[in-house]
């Protein structure tokens, strides 16, 4: 505890502290492996993994508690770039990245890789266009920048609205994921699991705000990356592809292309539809040769990338670095840490598919007798919970590709069992999924609560509020929003992936151009920014509603995952036209823009504004 009290000493010792933590976690994994050999049950191992890691995060959250404004909002602005990079990576990689992405690639093939490209390349925009300038600005929240750069409460208020819409859409999906994993590992019903997951999330963030979230996210990154890499490397070793599978799985891809012909993947269509599950019909690596397919790929990439550069819970992580230069290099580190998982996901999808398809491997099931397949433990386990189904449509007693249905989500979670790895690996993966979903939910809840407490309450409603009151309001809001999120999550309105893609589209529709042009176009003024934010959000939401719920035919193949394209187009045009029709901003504002463009000097906003 004293380490956290003396910030200086703590910051200096970060590598040692997290080194010890990583070592301790590996010892814990080894201990579990030994206990498994000694006959400890699978359920108990799962429970210990999830329980132990959550207890550690909660402990870090408790040790990081604070009653100082700049510690609560921006972690005291002393997070070193590499550690901020890890925290951002955990903040960024959600249940969707950890659990759903490899499964999506497995089922969807090349079109789905648009998410892999889109969720990494956006960081180029963050580094080049945004993060260093927002850091120099010295804001606590993203609406804080909009409100000060453009001036006036209306601009600030609309920015808060966009932030809440985007982040809340996103956070319900994350609480949903924590609930799912908690329910399975702790053997409690989903509805209870959701509230349990929320409890863990709040333990990490409530007492220490951004400071607590930062140090738990670093811890969560370490758990999630180990949990993601270990099964893939293990499996690749077993299949003889070596210990850096990401570089050499080209041959595995080639093998799958061969097997696609053998198993008639894409030719054999399922005879019936199974709700929530699908049979494999898409080719693994081939890309459809049509302008429409290419258009759909690049529009999805664009929405995800520009959304990345507009999502407040990501941008606010770069407010915590000690300098502008550190903010910039921190973006590069973030992307490196994210890259480690994202370039592994397609490899994981490839190896798992090979396990199932390749008749030369003992684990394969396609082309085997259905009675034998049904006898496999993992098949039984996942069918029992409704994640997998085998239907002998042609009645020949042999499992064909179009008779094997599953939910994409299970690819990551079930891979250790499919590949016959010990149960300790499954427990590790559950802890990793929990870490991924919790860390993202933490960042999102904090982004929402901070915008409401700082921008809405302090800046607009009660500017005279004293520090203590501000921080209590911030915590009460965190609790209320968390509860609202858990309530919505327990209704299971949307799937994880759809909700995440929508959040990106909302963010880029409303915030991308007002943020970028606020730095790069001195002429941009208040009226333009208001028109850009409101126009983009309204147009995007309207299009989403029409396409998804009102049965409108999508324009140019832009479906509900891509409504950001429509929102951004309206936002850009509205902002530029309205800006040019109204007066240019005053001298003071223009001088402020000049000031944020150079790293030297004090931040534009004071340290406790």
């Amino acid at each position, binding site marked *: 505890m004293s380490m956290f009290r003396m910030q200086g000493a703590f910051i200096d010792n970060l590598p040692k502290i997290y080194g010890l933590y990583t070592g301790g976690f590996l010892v814990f994994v080894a201990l579990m492996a030994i206990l498994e050999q000694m006959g400890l049950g699978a359920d108990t191992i799962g429970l210990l993994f999830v329980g132990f890691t959550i207890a550690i995060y909660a402990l870090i959250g408790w040790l990081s508690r604070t009653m100082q404004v700049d510690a609560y909002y921006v972690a005291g602005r002393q997070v070193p770039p590499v550690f901020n990079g890890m925290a951002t990576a955990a903040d960024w990689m959600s249940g969707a990245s950890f659990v759903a992405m490899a499964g999506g690639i497995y089922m969807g093939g090349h079109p789905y890789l648009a998410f892999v490209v889109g969720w990494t390349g956006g960081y180029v925009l963050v580094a080049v266009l945004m993060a260093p300038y927002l850091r120099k600005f010295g804001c606590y929240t993203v609406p804080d920048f909009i409100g000060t750069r453009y001036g006036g409460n209306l601009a600030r208020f609309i920015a808060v609205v966009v932030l809440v819409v985007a982040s809340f859409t996103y956070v319900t999906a994350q609480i949903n994921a924590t609930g799912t994993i908690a329910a399975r590992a702790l053997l409690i019903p989903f509805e209870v699991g959701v509230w349990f997951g929320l409890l863990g999330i709040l333990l990490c963030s409530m007492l220490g705000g951004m400071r607590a979230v930062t140090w738990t996210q670093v811890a969560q990154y370490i758990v999630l990356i180990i949990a993601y890499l270990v099964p893939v490397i293990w499996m690749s070793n077993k299949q003889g592809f070596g210990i850096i599978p990401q570089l050499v799985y*080209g041959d595995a891809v080639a093998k799958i*292309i061969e097997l696609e012909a053998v198993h008639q993947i894409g030719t054999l269509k399922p005879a019936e539809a199974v709700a929530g599950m699908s049979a494999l019909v898409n080719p693994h690596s081939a*890309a459809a040769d049509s302008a429409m397919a290419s258009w759909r790929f690049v529009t999805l990439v*664009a929405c995800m990338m520009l959304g990345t550069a507009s999502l407040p819970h990501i941008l606010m992580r770069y407010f915590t670095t000690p300098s502008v230069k550190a903010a910039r290099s921190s973006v*590069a580190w973030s992307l490196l840490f994210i890259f480690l998982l994202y370039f592994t996901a397609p490899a994981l999808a490839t190896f798992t598919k090979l396990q199932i398809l390749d008749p030369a491997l003992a684990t394969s099931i396609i082309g085997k007798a259905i009675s034998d397949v049904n006898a496999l433990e993992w098949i039984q386990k996942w069918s029992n919970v409704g994640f997998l189904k085998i239907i002998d449509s042609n009645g020949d007693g042999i499992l064909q590709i179009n008779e094997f249905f599953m939910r994409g989500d299970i690819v990551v979670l079930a891979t250790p069992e499919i590949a016959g790895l010990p149960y300790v690996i499954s427990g590790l993966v559950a802890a990793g999924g929990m870490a991924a979903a919790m860390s993202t939910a933490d960042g999102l809840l904090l982004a929402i609560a901070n915008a409401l407490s700082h921008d809405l309450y302090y800046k607009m409603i009660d500017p005279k509020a004293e520090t203590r009151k501000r921080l209590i309001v911030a915590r009460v809001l965190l609790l209320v929003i968390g509860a609202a999120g858990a309530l919505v999550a327990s209704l299971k309105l949307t799937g994880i992936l759809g909700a995440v893609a929508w959040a990106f589209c909302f963010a880029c529709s409303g915030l991308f151009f007002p943020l970028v042009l606020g730095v790069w176009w001195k002429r941009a003024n208040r009226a333009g920014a208001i028109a850009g934010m409101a126009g983009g959000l309204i147009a995007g939401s309207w299009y989403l509603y029409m396409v998804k719920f009102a049965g409108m035919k999508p324009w140019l193949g832009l479906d509900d995952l891509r409504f950001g394209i429509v929102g951004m187009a309206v936002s850009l045009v509205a902002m530029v036209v309205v800006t040019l029709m109204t007066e240019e901003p005053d001298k003071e504002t223009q001088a402020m823009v000049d000031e944020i463009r150079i*790293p*030297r000097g004090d931040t534009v906003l004071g340290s406790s504004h």
Partner: protein
Amino acid sequence: MSTDVDQRALHWERTKRLMFVHIGIWFVFSFVVHWFAPQLNGMSFMHFPLGYYMAAQGALVVFVIQLFVFVRQQDAIDHECGVAED
């Protein structure tokens, strides 16, 4: 004072130029390459079909390297124009 203004103007010119270069690279590896994925798949790179490789790994590698290079370049510009932090 006037040299300070000149320095700042030069700094922003060079910063803008660097921005356009990196946005250009980003554009090529985010969009152009993937538009032609079916054609690239006819070629092989490290035993991968090239179009698949670029989406699964290649573009990502470019982004990571690009950002570390960008950090160094921007820092050099800041120092040469005398506007870097102390």
